[in-house]
Each structure stands twice: as structure tokens, then as C-alpha cells.
């Protein structure tokens, strides 16, 4: 926050952001007891062998239109607000500077994510991960395991209802537009407004906007009931450009690459070995992270059940793995 802004103004911006964030967080608080990560046989073996997940750069997720959809929702609301506040030149200037893509993700900072579903037996997911059989859903107690992940992540519920999406963005935009309009009423658009107030509001606005965009998905995908484990590299002091650049270079060293359908996909590794370690210590009362594993439709479910039980027992010899079979017949794939 810029020191030339008064304490009172700074406080108001923070209060507005905190208030909105509180409501936003409340919509993600009902975390299911287990969430399922769908993967192929190779993916499953890789996850178990390395005790880690890949967190893919959100821009490279399977469906690129996901982020575009979120941007469209925000665009529509912003256009509406432009008309409502056409009498306030400061708000119009604020709108002009705002572009939905001016989020952290376009600022050289990528956001990485792993997807989970509430349902561990979804035909659409089996089709995606096992067109000839061989899909797996790894059920994880995320809420208890997350504190032990190697990366500081947040868990976000994907919102599919268009009306709820618009309502979040609308309330959020309205709050900041009104704030700027009130702060600049009967004042000229001078240096303090153009170079301090608006840029600072834009900074807070874009940070919150990123949260929304990554959580909005088209209503047609509603059956997935998806949650996203999200990770973004943090900068100690975003305004210290030299330090920020050095940190960015450090972050880049952690990025790895894999191929998918002929594309090169950036990802980072999120290790859960500490969660396994905690589960083996009785006093932690933390369950083995994989609380259930569902085998998708396949020709040999019995054989797979045996091999997967052995695979899980290798990680935790003293547990009895819960390995279930999908009841969906293979012919539907």
C-alpha cells in the first residue's frame, strides 16, 4: 500500500477487501470429508511412488476455455457497472485501467492447481481418464492432510451457478466503485487520485478478481462438483521490483514440464510425504491421506483391487486400504 494514502483510506480499502474475502471464504468452508482426484494407472503409480501430486499451471489445464469463461463473467459485470457509474470520472478511470486479465496470472505469476471432485464415481471422469478402462479416483481427506503438504495451498470450491458468480463479482465491483466515487466526490482527478488511490484499489481488486476467475466454471460442468487445490508463488514485497525479480527467478527453478497431447505443460510438485509421516504417528490423529481408492470400469477389477491394495500397503503397512470398484459397466465408456 502506498504511503501517500492516508491511514483512513488505507483502512477502508483493507476493510472492504477483508469483508468481501470473509464472505468468499465462507462459500468454501464446507469441505467434504474426502475429495477424489481422477487419474490414469500411470498417474496413480507416479503419485504413490513419489508421494506427490502435480499442480498444473491453470493456464494449461485440460480445458483452456475454463479461465476464459470466468473472464467473460467478470467482463459482463464490469460493463454493467460502467453504465451505472458513468457520472463519476474517477470510477470510469478505474474501470478503464481494469481489465479482467490484469490479474496475477498475467503478471508473470502463474497459479498452479490440482483438481478434485466430490464424487468418486463419475462416468464423465472415467471416460476422460480411462477410455479403455484403467481410470482411478484417489479419495483424500484434504482438510486433515493439507497442513502437511509441502506447498502452502488453498482449497477452493468451483462455482457453477451463473447467478451466484455474477452476484459475487457484482457485489465486489459495486463495493469498490462506490468507495472510489465517495472518496472522489467533488474532487478533481488530481495526482492523489490518478497515481495513488486508483492504482492501490486496482491492486487489491485484481488480487481478489483472480480468486473469482479461477473458481468460476460453466454450468454445464456442474456434475463434477470440483474443488481446486491452488498454489501461487508468493512475493515478499511485490513493490520491490529487484527483489521480486530475484524471487521470480527462484520460483522458475521449481517449475517442471511434462507433455500432454503434444503440448508442453508447466507444473510444480506438491509432496504429501509429511502427511503420510503424520498419519503413522498415533498422537497426530491424522488419517492416512488416501482414505479410499475407487477403481474405474475395467476388465479386471479383482486383479486391480489386489495390486492397488498392495501398492497402498507399501506406503502404509499397518492400514487396511479401502479399495472400491466402480459399479459402472465398462461398455458405457
Amino acid at each position, binding site marked *: 500500500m502506498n504511503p501517500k494514502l492516508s491511514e483512513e483510506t488505507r483502512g477502508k480499502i483493507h476493510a472492504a477487501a477483508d469483508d468481501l*474475502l*470473509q464472505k468468499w*471464504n*465462507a462459500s468454501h*468452508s*464446507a*469441505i467434504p*470429508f474426502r475429495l477424489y482426484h481422477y487419474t490414469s494407472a500411470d498417474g496413480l503409480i507416479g503419485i504413490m511412488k513419489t508421494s506427490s501430486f502435480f499442480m498444473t499451471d491453470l493456464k494449461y489445464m485440460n480445458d483452456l476455455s475454463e479461465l476464459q469463461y470466468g473472464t467473460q463473467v467478470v467482463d459482463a459485470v464490469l460493463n454493467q457497472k460502467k453504465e451505472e457509474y458513468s457520472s463519476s470520472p474517477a470510477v470510469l478511470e478505474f474501470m478503464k485501467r481494469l481489465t479482467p486479465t490484469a490479474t496475477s496470472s498475467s503478471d508473470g505469476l502463474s497459479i498452479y492447481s490440482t483438481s478434485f471432485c466430490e464424487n468418486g464415481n463419475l462416468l464423465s471422469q472415467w471416460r476422460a481418464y480411462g477410455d479403455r478402462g484403467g481410470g482411478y479416483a484417489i479419495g483424500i*481427506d484434504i*482438510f*486433515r492432510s*493439507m*497442513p*502437511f*503438504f509441502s506447498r*502452502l*495451498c*488453498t482449497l477452493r470450491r468451483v462455482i457453477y451457478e451463473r447467478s451466484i458468480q455474477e452476484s459475487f463479482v457484482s457485489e465486489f465491483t459495486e463495493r469498490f466503485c462506490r468507495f472510489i466515487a465517495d472518496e472522489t466526490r467533488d474532487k478533481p482527478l488530481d495526482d492523489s487520485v490518478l497515481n495513488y488511490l486508483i492504482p492501490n484499489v486496482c491492486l487489491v481488486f485484481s488480487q481478489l478478481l483472480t480468486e473469482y476467475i479461477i473458481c468460476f466454471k460453466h454450468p454445464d460442468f456442474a456434475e463434477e462438483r470440483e474443488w481446486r487445490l491452488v498454489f501461487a508463488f508468493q512475493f515478499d514485497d511485490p513493490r520491490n521490483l529487484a527483489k521480486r525479480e530475484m524471487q521470480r527467478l527462484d520460483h522458475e527453478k521449481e517449475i517442471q514440464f511434462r507433455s500432454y497431447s503434444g503440448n508442453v505443460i508447466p507444473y510444480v510438485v506438491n509432496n504429501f510425504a*509429511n502427511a503420510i*509421516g*503424520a*498419519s503413522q*504417528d*498415533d*498422537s*497426530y*490423529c*491424522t*488419517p*492416512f491421506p488416501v*482414505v479410499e481408492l475407487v477403481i474405474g470400469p475395467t476388465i479386471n477389477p479383482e486383479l486391480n483391487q489386489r495390486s492397488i491394495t498392495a501398492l497402498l500397503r507399501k506406503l502404509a503397512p*499397518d*492400514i*487396511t486400504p*479401502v479399495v472400491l470398484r466402480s459399479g459402472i459397466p465398462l461398455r458405457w465408456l
Partner: protein
Amino acid sequence: MLYSINHLIFAPNFQFRRYVYKLVRNFLTKHMAWIVAQTYKAIIGGCFFSDVPIILEIDKQPIITVKEDSQNNLFGVDADINGKSGDLIATIRNGVIELQKADGHVLHELPNRQLLINAEDGRALFDFKSMPADASYSFELSLHTYLPCGIPLSLHPNRIRIGCTRILRPHAHGVILENGRGGERAAIEIVLPTKDIYDGKILVPFVEFAGSNRPATEAVAPRRFNEHLGSTIRITADNPFFKINEPLYVRNLGISGFPIGISAIRSDELGVSEENEPETK
């Protein structure tokens, strides 16, 4: 730090949750009729409990009791969460948690879950999950506490542990363990001390399994649940006290009707050093 608590990130709307929690707690206390639950199904410490009103008792004194609000079909427990030095961290009555020692502890009140965590190392001291109405059991409970005599008790999500390494602790007796009919748990496995020597005699509880009495050391735990539906394991106490070097583990069992009972404890046998038991603050 291996288990860094810095990754705990669920606190932004803590004040709001706390406010709602107090409102709900007041409502529960005033308007609901809680009784000891006689009929229920639950996963407690990774074991399947069916109709066990008192989970654990010492000298017939209940330590963990399952409670039920019969009007609203809600379940909760009565229990105390103690630290290693015997200090009271939290009391749970009728499913409502009252923090006695707020410093260093975080209480998460989610719509379907209560979770009390040691903020320094991420240890869960109490985790109660209410299952949806269509689930085959009503709730899951795990907790870590110290019994009034100083013995650690872990109702871990995957197992129950009573005692710990190198502690002189009493013999657990009067335990009636039964795999629940129709339960989902896959195996029966009981791990009992195998090298309990006291006064030159091997003292192990006897296990009556499927109608035959055999020492626990010889008890072979069947792996497949379906082969032994409804069979009963009884641990009887020939010797009320004995010295052991390993804790008692109970895994993947169905426990029906009767509590896990521990007989009287001689105080002069306690207070011996423990391994791998960091101070719970």
C-alpha cells in the same frame, strides 16, 4: 519444522464462525434434550462401533460417552481432552467443545465437522465428523488425550492405541470386541503385546476367538471380514496388572454393545518415561 503449522490456512473468517458457534451452542444447551446414545453406528478410532453407549471406561467410570439428541437425531460425545501434564485443554459435553486452554489451539467449527488442532504442530486433539443422513453410520470420531492416570489414549482415524512405548500401564480387560455384521471394514486385526514378562512369567491376555481360548500371541487375525461375520473376540483379565513394553493397538474391529474397559490402575506403576510422546501443549 517437519509438520509445519504454517500451512494451516483456514482462519480468515474465524471470528464469524466463533460468533455463529456461540449462537448454536447456546441454542443446543437450552433447547435440546441430550441423552446417552443406546443405538447408533459410528467409526471411532478406525473401528466400527455399534450400540456402545460408553466407548471407554476406567473402574466403571465413563471416560468417553456417546450422546444423542433424540429429537433431532444428532450425535455428540462427552469427553475431556487433557494434556500430558494432566492439564485440561478442552471439555466436550453433548458435542459442544469448550476450550479451557485456548492458547496454541485452533478450533474449527465447520457445518459437518468439529476439529480441535494444536496450532504449533498440527496435531488433531479432537475430530468429530457428522455423516450425511444416507451414510451407513452416523459419525466418525478421532481424538488424542491423556487419561486421568496419565496414560495416553489415541483414537486415531486408523486405529486405537492405549498406552505407549515403555510405559507401565494396566492390563486392558473386559474388552468385548465384535466385528459388526454387514460392516464395511475389511479385516480383523488385533495387535497385542507379545513379550510381556512379569515376575518371570509371560502374562498375556487370553483371547477367545470363534469359540476357542488361545493366548493373544497365538491369535491369528483373519484378513477377510466376510469369513468371520459376527464372530467375537474376548479379552479377559487373568492378571489385573502386568508390565509391558508396547502399547495396546486395536485395529479394524467392530465393537458392539460393551465399552473398552480398563481395570483399576495402581498409581505407583505410572510415571515411567515415554518415547515419542512430545508434550501436548
